[in-house]
C-alpha cells in the first residue's frame, strides 16, 4: 500500500461501529489490563523484585522455624504467605497509587474525557494487576514447595476456589478504593500506606497462623482480606490446617463475600466522588496546578 492509499484509508473510511454500554465496558477493562499483563512482563527485573526477594524472606522464616523445631506445617504456611505477599504488595503500592501516577503522566484526564466508565478503568487495572501478580505468586509457590518439600492436600477444591476468588475480589476492591483515596489525599495517603505496611505484615499473619495472635488483634487484622483468605486457604490445603485456623472456613467465606461487595461498592462511590471533585475543582487531573 502506498502512502496515498494509506492516507485515504486512514482518513476517509468511518468505523463500522463504535461500541457502547457493556461492550465498551468490557473493552475498556481488557485494554487497561493489557499494559499490566503484557507490558510488565517485559520488565525482566520482576524476577528479582517479585520472586527472588520474597523468596529470601521465605527462606529466612523457614530457617528460623526449622531452627526452633516448629511444626512442619509452618513451612507450608510460610511458602503460601510468601506467595500471597506479592498480591498485597501489588495492591498497596501499585494498585493504590496507580490513579495518582496516571494523573502525573497525563493519562487520567484522557480516561475521564473518554466515553468509557472510570470504573472499567479501575477494574482493568485490578484485573491486570491480579493476573500479572498471579504469575509471581505461582513462581514463589513452586520454588518454595520444591526447595522445602512442601506437600498439599486439598480438602475441598470448591471452597479453595471460592476463598481465593473472594479474597482477590475483596483485596483488589480494597485496592480500587485506596486508588481513589490516594488520588484525593495525595502524598498523605502514601505516607499512611507506608506506615501501615510493616504492622499489616505482622498482624495479617503472612508468615504464621493468625490464631497465634490475641483474638482482637487477629479480628482487627481481618479487615485486610488476605488475612482471612490466607487463614482459610491454609485450613483447606494442609492436612492439619484446621487445627491452626482462626475461625471456620464457612464463616471466612461469608465475611470475604461481604468484604468483596463492601469494598467494590465503596470504590465505586469514592471514584464517582473523585470524578466530581476533579471536574468541579480542576485540580485532580492537573499535575501542575
Amino acid at each position: 500500500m502506498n502512502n496515498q492509499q494509506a492516507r485515504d484509508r486512514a482518513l476517509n473510511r468511518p468505523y463500522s461501529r463504535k461500541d457502547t454500554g457493556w461492550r465498551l465496558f468490557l473493552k475498556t477493562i481488557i485494554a487497561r489490563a493489557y499494559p499490566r499483563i503484557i507490558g510488565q512482563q517485559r520488565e525482566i527485573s520482576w524476577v528479582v523484585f517479585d520472586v527472588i526477594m520474597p523468596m529470601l524472606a521465605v527462606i529466612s522464616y523457614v530457617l528460623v522455624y526449622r531452627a526452633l523445631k516448629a511444626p512442619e506445617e509452618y513451612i507450608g504456611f510460610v511458602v503460601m504467605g510468601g506467595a500471597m505477599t506479592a498480591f498485597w504488595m501489588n495492591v498497596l503500592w501499585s494498585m493504590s497509587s496507580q490513579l495518582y501516577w496516571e494523573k502525573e503522566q497525563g493519562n487520567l484526564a484522557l480516561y475521564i474525557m473518554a466515553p468509557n466508565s472510570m470504573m472499567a478503568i479501575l477494574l482493568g487495572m485490578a484485573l491486570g494487576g491480579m493476573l500479572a501478580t498471579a504469575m509471581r505468586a505461582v513462581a514463589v509457590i513452586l520454588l518454595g514447595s520444591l526447595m522445602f518439600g512442601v506437600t498439599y492436600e486439598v480438602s475441598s477444591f470448591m471452597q479453595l476456589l471460592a476463598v481465593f476468588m473472594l479474597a482477590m475480589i475483596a483485596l483488589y476492591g480494597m485496592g480500587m478504593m485506596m486508588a481513589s483515596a490516594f488520588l484525593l489525599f495525595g502524598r498523605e495517603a502514601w505516607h499512611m500506606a507506608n506506615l501501615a505496611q510493616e504492622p499489616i505484615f505482622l498482624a495479617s499473619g503472612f508468615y504464621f497462623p493468625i490464631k497465634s495472635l490475641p483474638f482482637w488483634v487477629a479480628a482487627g487484622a481481618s479487615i485486610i482480606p488476605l488475612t482471612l483468605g490466607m487463614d482459610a486457604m491454609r485450613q483447606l490445603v494442609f492436612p492439619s490446617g484446621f487445627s491452626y485456623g482462626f475461625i471456620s472456613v464457612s464463616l471466612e467465606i461469608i465475611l470475604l463475600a461481604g468484604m468483596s461487595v463492601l469494598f467494590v461498592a465503596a470504590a465505586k462511590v469514592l471514584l464517582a466522588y473523585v470524578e466530581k471533585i476533579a471536574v468541579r475543582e480542576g485540580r485532580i487531573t492537573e499535575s501542575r496546578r
Partner: protein
Amino acid sequence: MSTTLAIETKNLGRIYKLRGSKKETRKELVALQDVSLTVQRGELFGLLGPNGAGKTTLIKVLTTLLSPTSGWARVAGADVQREPDLVRPRINMVSGGESSGYGLLTVRENLWMFSQFYGVPSQEANERIEALLEMVGMKDRMHTKSSDLSTGLRQKMNIVRGFLTDPEVLFLDEPTLGLDVGASRDVRRFIIDWLKTDKERTLLLTTHYMVEADELCDRVAIINKGRVLACDTPSALKQRLQKDVMFEVETSPLNGLTPQMMEEQPEVKKAALTEIEGGARLKLSLVEESALARVFSLFAQKDIKVMNLNKRQPTLEDVFVELVGRSMAEEESNEQSAG
C-alpha cells in the same frame, strides 16, 4: 442551537480557588471571563494567546474536564456540564508535551489501548493505526516501545491518538510545543489533510505561535487574561492594522530608552520590545512613515545604533500588541514575574 455549530459558549467563566496556608484567606484566580464564541462545523478555529491566558482552561471546560463557574458551553450539540456523556464520544484532545500512554508498551499497543476506550473495533483500529503512523512517517516505529521514542516522535504518536478515534471535534492544545521545525511542519500538514477529507470535522487549536495560527486557522480568537479580545479571520484581524506603517528595527542596547518613551512621540502608535542578544528588536507601528525620523532622533540622543531596519506587513503578533499593548513575550514574562 443551530446544528451547524460545533462549539458554542456564552458568557463562560471559570474562577480557580487557589490553595494557600490555612491562615490565609483563599485567593481566587480568574482564568476565564465572559467568553462567548461560536465555532462552525468544519472550521479550524485557533485560540491565540500567551501562556496563562486561559486557553487550556477553555479547552478543559469544552472537553468536560472542568466545570465552568458561570455561563455555559455546548460541544457537538450537547451541554458540556449537563450532558458530558453525549459530548465525550464525539471529541478527543491532544496536548503538547504530554506523556500519556505507557512506556513499556509499543507505539501500536498504546494507540490500540486508547482506541478501545472509545469502543473502536480492534481490527479496524489496528488498520487505522498503521495508516495514520504511515502518514506521520512513523510506521517503522510501530513496534518501538514508547519509552524509546524521542520527544518529537512521542508527540506524533499523541497526535495520532487524538485522530485515531475519528472525533467530530478535536481539541489540540499547543500540539507543536517543543517540536523541531520539521516535525511541526509534518503535524500542520497532517492537520490540514485530516480536515480536508471531511467537511464535518472541526478542530480547535490553541497555540502561542503566531505563524502557526496564521497558517492554519480559518478564524482566530485572541485571548488574554481570560478574555477574548478579538475574533475574526487572520486576514481580517491583520487588516485592522493595514492603515499603519510597520517597521522592525534591530538596535544596540537601548540605554534606558523605553517603548513608552517612543510611544510618547507624535504619530508613533505602538512600540513593542523584544530583548535579543547584544541589543533589542523593536516592532514599531506608525501612523505616518515620517514618524520613524522622530524615533531615530531618540536613538541618536541615547547613542543607540541601528543594526537592521525592515518595513513589513502586519502580523498576528502586531494585532496582539495592538490589542494588549505588549508583545506576547512581554506578556508572558510579566505573568511569570507576577506569579
